């Protein structure tokens, strides 16, 4: 058996990994470094028109009248359209999925008809020759509103005195209860019960590049090409087709360079659907780019939760049970097509995740409000679940006088316990919590940090060390969406083509937003086929070119897309060797491909350059046996089948110093030890972790979408909504354990969201650890100076 056939994680054999495992710089970063990328807003088209939206100033109001007379006369205006006009070209949608039992949401239109349900909802569209002119005309639209009472507070929404959508009966979008049984008994017999309620501030992605879409309808052939900064082009192809009434294969979605996404750009946005509809209506290309102010009002928000948690344990520190009551307010609509119930559902699935207790009870309520819509954002429910789990664990450890690391060690699922089914029903293939803990404590020199902390406390310098153990969902099967009826593909495909000159073109259905998808595919393809990386070109993000697939989400790119590339690469090499055997008149088993040539498998002697193989295969097949046809293009697909989700594990640590006079937190350092299986490119993995950690730090210290009682967003700009900037961020040390998944040849799990999942919990625990000698504790993030000073009693 040659190296080609063995899984990369095959024990005891020397599998030539080629580029896999190397920190190769990304080839497609070169053009970005020169400002020569092509983001959707960079594209130029003849007769390109621009759309700007008239957005509701009210959180909840009937649209009594819209007067477009003045707007229509404004220079450069091509047309002004209300919801009814756009509805003739775009059908509404309802964001529910069958496997979220009982989830409900009313139909949503591309542009609101009759009623606006959040401040910022698009209520009319102006198409003009330039964005400036479109905005001028938007300013001339006159509207009459009948304001309705707005539901803003999550408890009031749950109580339901005012119901936003009367036809639904109440404000509950989705609720879920989970009970293993035996929970009350566990709490009754526990030596210690701790209880705490945690608050999580609503926040949002703030991608540097605003949402961008350029729709180009060709009336001559009833076809639509959409240049779309989206993570899931095939999903959008299906949605444009069904809602605009254009045959699926006549819709092509092309994703050029994307300036950051983190889940924000994987959802269906009404204003983007309207843009596509307007292109069909006007029979010309129409572009929409969300500017920063409208981004804050209309990009999905996420992660607003109030969660009450209880933990029962013995006096030796053995956790017996967890109990969770989670309330989360979303917007007035569940977001299409993935639904706004998933985040809360994840919190229920993941709370307590790393630990070996058997009893668990959870209650979830996801309620509508008249604030902006919410949906999946990097790490989805993990930051909530990890934070509340790790915070209550620290609280229990503190009450027992146990070191938090030792408390965790006592309770983490043993490394030899797998496969393992967790009390929420999720299944783990194989995790490495204990190895991870050991590595982390060594990496950060935990003992020394504790000694330093003690010494500094005597001098009234307050440092805190916080740990956060985590599990993370990656590489999902259709269990995430497909089973619920969503036309979201959980499989992906890769087509590899050997070019006549011996170069390799890779076309894969997973997409790139900067994380390095194209780079790792080049590494995998080059390794699998036997060429050098400079010979490889990768194409992603084009439904007209790549196989059908799911795109990027839930940290699936490397594990699923990468596997498809690996399988296709190995199959292509096999086909190439068929051609080589025919050319050389040798036995295929004697041959291999290495360094851009066909070589003798044993002696490694080069027998045939790939350029020559290509020349003969494509231009001189007449010299090959009559019954032989060269197949130098191969496509393979991959779906993870054994596990609904391929879980990974990791642990993070944060070191902070608090100024008790100002309430300000200084982040001294951060660590992350992560097990994501086979690491294809260590540098890219570490950088994903770092970026994710800082995003999580944003949630912990800075970011919150602040609404007033009337549903007005108070801080929807970059000066008032605070994102992490360079000076306040720590250096982040990363290390890895590798426990490959056996579901694939590559063995890669996902890692893109891990940093964000664990960072808020680690920082929270560090802050509370720093505050503990001062008898203060914080439970609501972001942990602003205000909140810390209040906890310290410095301010009433």
């Amino acid at each position, binding site marked *: 058996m040659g190296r080609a056939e063995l899984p990369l994680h095959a024990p005891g054999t020397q599998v030539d990994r080629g580029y896999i495992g190397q920190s190769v710089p990304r080839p497609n970063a070169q053009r970005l470094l020169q400002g020569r990328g092509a983001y959707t807003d960079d594209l130029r088209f003849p007769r390109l028109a621009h759309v700007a939206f008239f957005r509701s100033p009210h959180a909840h109001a009937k649209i009594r009248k819209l007067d477009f007379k003045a707007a229509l006369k404004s220079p450069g205006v091509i047309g002004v359209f209300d919801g009814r006009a756009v509805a003739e070209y775009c059908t509404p949608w309802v964001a529910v999925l069958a496997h979220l039992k009982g989830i409900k949401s009313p139909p949503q239109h591309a542009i609101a008809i009759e009623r606006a349900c959040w401040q910022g909802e698009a209520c009319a569209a102006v198409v003009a020759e330039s*964005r*400036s002119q479109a*905005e*001028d005309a938007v*300013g001339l639209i006159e509207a009459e509103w009948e304001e309705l009472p707005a539901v803003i507070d999550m408890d009031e929404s749950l109580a339901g005195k005012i119901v936003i959508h009367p036809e639904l009966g109440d404000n509950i979008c989705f609720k879920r209860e989970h009970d293993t049984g035996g929970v009350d008994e566990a709490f009754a017999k526990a030596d210690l019960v701790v209880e705490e309620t945690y608050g999580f501030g609503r926040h949002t992605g703030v991608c540097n590049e605003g949402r961008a879409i350029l729709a180009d309808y060709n009336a001559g052939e009833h076809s639509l090409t959409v240049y779309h900064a989206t993570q899931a082009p095939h999903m959008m192809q299906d949605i444009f087709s069904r809602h605009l009434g254009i045959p699926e294969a006549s819709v092509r979605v092309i994703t050029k360079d994307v300036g950051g996404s983190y889940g924000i750009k994987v959802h269906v946005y009404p204003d983007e659907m309207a843009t596509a509809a307007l292109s069909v209506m006007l029979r010309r290309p129409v572009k929409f780019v969300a*500017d*920063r*102010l409208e981004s804050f009002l209309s990009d999905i928000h996420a992660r607003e939760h109030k969660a009450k948690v209880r933990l029962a344990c013995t006096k030796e520190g053995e956790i017996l049970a967890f109990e969770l009551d989670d309330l989360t307010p979303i917007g007035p609509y569940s977001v299409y097509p993935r639904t706004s119930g998933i985040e809360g559902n994840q919190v229920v699935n993941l709370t307590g995740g790393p630990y070996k207790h058997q009893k668990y009870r959870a209650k979830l309520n996801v309620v509508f409000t008249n604030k902006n819509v919410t949906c999946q954002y990097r790490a989805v429910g993990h930051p909530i679940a990890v934070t509340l789990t790790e915070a209550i664990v620290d609280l229990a450890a503190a009450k027992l006088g146990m070191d938090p690391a030792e408390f965790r060690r006592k309770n983490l699922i043993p490394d030899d316990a797998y496969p393992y089914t967790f009390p929420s029903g999720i299944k783990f293939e194989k995790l490495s919590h204990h190895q991870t803990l050991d590595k982390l404590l060594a990496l950060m020199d935990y003992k020394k940090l504790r000694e330093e902390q003690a010494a500094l406390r005597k001098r009234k310098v307050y440092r805190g060390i916080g740990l956060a153990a985590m599990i993370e969902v990656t590489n999902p099967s259709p269990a995430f969406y497909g089973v619920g009826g969503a036309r979201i593909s959980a499989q992906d495909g890769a087509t590899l083509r050997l070019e006549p000159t011996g170069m390799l073109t890779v076309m894969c259905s997973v997409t790139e937003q900067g994380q390095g998808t194209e780079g790792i595919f080049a590494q995998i393809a080059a390794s699998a086929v036997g060429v050098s990386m400079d010979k490889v070109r990768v194409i992603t993000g084009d439904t007209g070119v790549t196989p059908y697939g799911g795109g990027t989400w839930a940290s699936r790119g490397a594990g699923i897309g990468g596997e498809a590339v690996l399988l296709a690469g190995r199959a292509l090499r096999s086909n190439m060797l068929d051609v080589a055997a025919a050319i050389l008149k040798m036995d295929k088993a004697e041959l291999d491909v290495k360094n851009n040539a066909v070589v003798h498998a044993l002696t490694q002697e080069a027998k045939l350059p790939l350029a020559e193989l290509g020349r003969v295969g494509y231009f001189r097949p007449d010299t090959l046996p009559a019954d032989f046809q060269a197949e130098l293009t191969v496509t393979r697909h991959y779906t993870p089948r054994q596990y609904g989700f391929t879980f990974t594990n990791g642990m993070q640590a944060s070191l902070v110093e608090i100024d008790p*006079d*100002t*309430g*300000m937190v200084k982040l001294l350092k951060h660590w992350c030890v992560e097990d994501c299986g086979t690491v294809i490119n260590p540098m890219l993995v570490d950088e994903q972790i770092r970026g994710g950690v800082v995003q999580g730090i944003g949630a912990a210290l*800075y970011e919150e979408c*602040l609404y007033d009682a009337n549903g007005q967003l*108070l*801080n929807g*700009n970059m*000066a*008032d909504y*605070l994102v992490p*900037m360079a*000076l*306040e961020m720590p250096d982040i040390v990363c290390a890895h354990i590798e426990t490959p998944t056996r579901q694939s040849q590559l063995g890669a799990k996902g890692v893109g969201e891990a940093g964000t999942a664990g960072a808020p919990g680690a920082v929270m625990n560090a802050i509370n650890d720093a505050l503990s000698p001062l008898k203060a504790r914080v439970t609501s993030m972001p942990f*602003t*100076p*205000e909140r810390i*000073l*209040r906890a310290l009693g*410095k*301010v*009433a």
Partner: protein
Amino acid sequence: MKAAPFAYAKPRALAEALDLAARPDAKILAGGQSLIPSLNMRLSSPALLVDINALGELKGISLERGVVRIGALATHAEIEKSQIIQEHLPLFAAAVRHIAHPAIRNRGTIGGSLALADPAAEYPACVLAMEGVIFARSSAGQRQIRASDFFKGLFETDLKPGELLAAVEITAQLKDERSAFLELARRQGDYATVGLAAFATNGTKRLAYFGAADRPVLAQNAAKAKDLDSAKAALAKDLQPPADLYHSSATKLHLAQVLLERAWNTL
């Protein structure tokens, strides 16, 4: 967010600039670092922008007979690099490092900052602390306005329609005088949560707080206190800071007291 249309003029002479600026729907464009965002966000839509950057007499930093004169068009970057400011106005040298970021400092001007009078801005408090004098030009001539008379309210100064802030003069800090500049902000370069520009001369203290009211404000009672504890207590009488998006009034007062404590020994 694209600005609404406006006309643009770039006068080469001060008289012409004053004429244009006197028009009711005109706004003066100096560095543009505060004006242009408000235009882009359509918070403001003047009919005419009068670009004063060609007026040489509004530029420059000079020292004459113990008085530092800073032209309205002196950029924050120029102030940051100025030897005169370093040596003779250390309070301003300390303050400028907190203003925004390098790219903004290259364009933003002290004239723009003083004329805008953002309550969380650094220079107004510095000018107030050191009793600077603002020079306003109009077609009627020149007017001198003392700092304590200049800042009238939220984004409101004593500048009358048709007046242009031309320069500010501050007496150079003497060897036996002391200054301290402290600012608390969530992130480097942000507008201050609260800040203190303090100046001590001849046994008297001038404690100019910013981010603590609708304008820079002198904490008169605290300045007269004999010791730190009574000064901190007195501060509660001097300041009733409005809450902002992230900090309650009580927190702002508390932070103001913390700054006072940190500046006390320097003064």
